[in-house]
């Protein structure tokens, strides 16, 4: 990084370089901040005159990705769970399988008759398979805990990287727009380098598709909760109802996005990548893909005898997703946003 700071050719690519230039030496908090500010577009690797096989062998995206992987373990809450980031792929897949099995067994033992019984998709059909108390109870508990753990992680990161207690609205808005547009993925407008020296927007678009897809699915869940608890309408809903439409579009977005990201990753030049990060990446992508796929399958076959099993399957995936949330690659969203916020706050106003 000392090399980068005396070169500065890359300062036009993203926020990392100007942030680096504001410092002469780097504390471990600074490194965490810069590592999470990096969007891994790899533009600086291909542009670097000191990249291997040059004797300086500079590989900034890889170095920052490794540091980033370390920060996930460092800021995790509660702290003893840091170890799950060592073998994140194994952890997430085991958790997913266990959650699916658990929900299936639960459903089979609580309502053995309902699991394979074909029934029309009339209100209350889902609760016939899995009791409302179990579904809502488990969901709120896991969701609540995940939010708490993520918030604690954010707090740890924010403290360590020297963030102040007060944030201006302008910084918040700037960070918000940086997150929503992924402005930093490759010089703002040219895209990133996936396979080689050529720039491409594929990764950005795939991520957007996944991200907005996820948000739509989340919105779908929220509207469904609103329908049920405020309007008194119980799921499943009609095809052209708001929760179903949101979920359908969102699910498709997530399917396309996660598949696209995996495709980009498979084809990518391994040189600037950090191996330590790959299992985290694939684990989260696979979870999201499964969540979307099972959700859509459930929608397609909710009038058939497969509905019960698919519902259990879908809920198992969702359960594992929320259980793993603070302990999967998902945390990158928290720390990246925090880093962008920190960046917006320290950037000089024009």
């Amino acid at each position: 990084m000392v090399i980068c700071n005396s070169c500065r050719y890359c300062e036009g690519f993203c926020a990392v370089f100007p942030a680096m230039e504001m410092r002469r030496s780097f504390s471990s908090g600074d490194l965490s901040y810069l590592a999470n500010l990096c969007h891994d577009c790899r533009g600086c690797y291909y542009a670097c005159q000191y990249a291997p096989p040059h004797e300086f062998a500079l590989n900034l995206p890889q170095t920052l990705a490794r540091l980033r992987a370390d920060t996930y373990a460092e800021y995790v809450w509660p702290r003893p769970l840091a170890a799950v980031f060592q073998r994140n792929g194994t952890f997430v897949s085991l958790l997913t399988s266990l959650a699916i099995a658990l929900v299936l067994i639960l459903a089979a033992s609580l309502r053995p008759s309902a699991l394979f019984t074909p029934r029309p998709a009339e209100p209350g059909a889902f609760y016939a398979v899995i009791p409302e108390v179990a579904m809502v109870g488990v969901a709120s508990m896991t969701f609540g805990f995940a939010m708490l753990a993520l918030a604690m992680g954010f707090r740890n990161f924010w403290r360590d990287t020297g963030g102040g207690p007060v944030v201006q609205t302008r910084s918040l808005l700037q960070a918000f727009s940086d997150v929503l547009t992924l402005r930093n993925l490759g010089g703002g407008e040219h895209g990133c380098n996936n396979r080689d020296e050529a720039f491409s927007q594929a990764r950005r678009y795939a991520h957007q598709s996944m991200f907005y897809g996820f948000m739509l699915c989340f919105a779908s869940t929220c509207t469904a909760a609103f329908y049920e608890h405020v309007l008194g309408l119980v799921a499943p809903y009609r095809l052209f109802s708001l929760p179903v439409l949101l979920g359908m579009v969102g699910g498709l977005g997530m399917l396309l996005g996660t598949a696209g990201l995996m495709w980009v990753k498979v084809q990518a030049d391994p040189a600037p990548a950090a191996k330590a990060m790959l299992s985290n990446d694939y684990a989260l992508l696979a979870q999201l893909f499964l969540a979307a796929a099972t959700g859509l399958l459930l929608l397609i076959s909710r009038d058939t005898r497969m509905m019960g099993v698919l519902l259990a399957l879908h809920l198992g995936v969702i359960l594992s997703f929320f259980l793993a949330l603070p302990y999967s690659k998902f945390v990158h969203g928290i720390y990246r946003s925090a880093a962008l916020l920190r960046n917006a706050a320290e950037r000089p106003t024009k």
Partner: protein
Amino acid sequence: MTNLNELYDVLVIGGGNAALCAAITARQAGASVLVLEHAPREFRGGNSRHTRNLRAMHLQPTATLTESYSEADYWTDLLDVTGGKTDEHLARITIRDTTDVVRWMETQGAHFQPSLSGTLNLSRTNAFFLGGGKALMNAYYLTAERLGIKVAYNAEVKSLRLVDGAVQDAIAVSEGAPVTVRARSIVVASGGFQANVEWLREYWGDAADNFIIRGTPFAKGLLLRNLLDQGVAPIGDPKQCHAVAIDARAPKFDGGIVTRLDCIPFSIVVDHEARRFYDEGEDIWPKRYAIWGRLVAMRPKQIAYAIMDSKSEELFMPSMYPAIRANSIRELAHKLGLDENALEKTVREFNAAVQPGTFNSGSLDDCRTAGINPPKTHWARVIDTPPFIGYPLRPGITFTYLGVKVDENARVLMSNGQPCANLFAAGEIMAGNILGEGYMAGIGMAIGSVFGRIAGRETGKFARN
């Protein structure tokens, strides 16, 4: 693998900015083009991979350049740095054509950045490549590939067979095997001879062994020597080159930008006997950084040391090497390998000569010395606040100016004044036509781009219709 046995319309020798400008332009004119690059793919692009910007004339602000930079301003600046050692006709062609080069580069896939910090305040005159010269070269090579230009790496051209002012064929070594390459026309864009220490020794003697080559180790000047031996007209002083004082800890080749040190105006500079030898504060740094390579090259043992105290530490861009620190001048001298008494004496005498003044790092201030020789005419402050800081300096050669003489069509001229029939030159190998002495940022890339495109335009005419 690229077929080297075909007859090509255009053979481009070299793989940097000038070479690719020529190759792409000739190909777009319909010619079949072969590029022979000495370096392996990872190190392609010659010195262009270490560059960052291009000096461009413009009459109004653009996306990448502020204000305006007229032909007259550009010409005045060039005249100033070269001390008149330039060819006005070729220089003006270069200056005028740079108005179009930024746009042209963008159509070839290059990206520019809005100008930011740490760049010697060049946003008015120079357009900066996003990610630097290697990113520019990446864009060119992608375009070349898309256009169907054949590129062979690890292919060194050893000689051209020149008969009656026309090139018959080229003798090359490709991937270790000798090969004869034939083409209707040839563009030599193979750089200077700065990486050829043997050749540098002819002019500099043993001092050449202590030079550090900032850029590509592939600029051996083999073709330049070969052409001059065959009666091509030389241009430029063989001892002239772009040389700056860089950190002595830099690698022998390819250290590039991160080895440079901008600390001299805020330091005193001493030689191996701890004596000062030149006014460190003569003028603002952008106007003086390019003289210090020669100054250090002309000292015994080609080494010098910049000495300052903690007051000056944050005033310049950091180099990649750590500053050498000490709590006393004696300790610093010891760490730098200098005589303790001699350095103490030099600092004492300097401190005694410093006059009162108001320090301003950003402009020519009134902090100067009186009664010592050489004086320090600006930014002279007493060196008294530990920790004391030292950096070792060596001459860092960017490129040499000896080249081949060309006409306005980039056509190589013979010593008798006759133009060669099918031989053209672009880039460092002919930059001496315009830059006889001195340097200004981004002029090398300007000459390379303009004459590369001219050479491409002219060789494009050799295309079989």
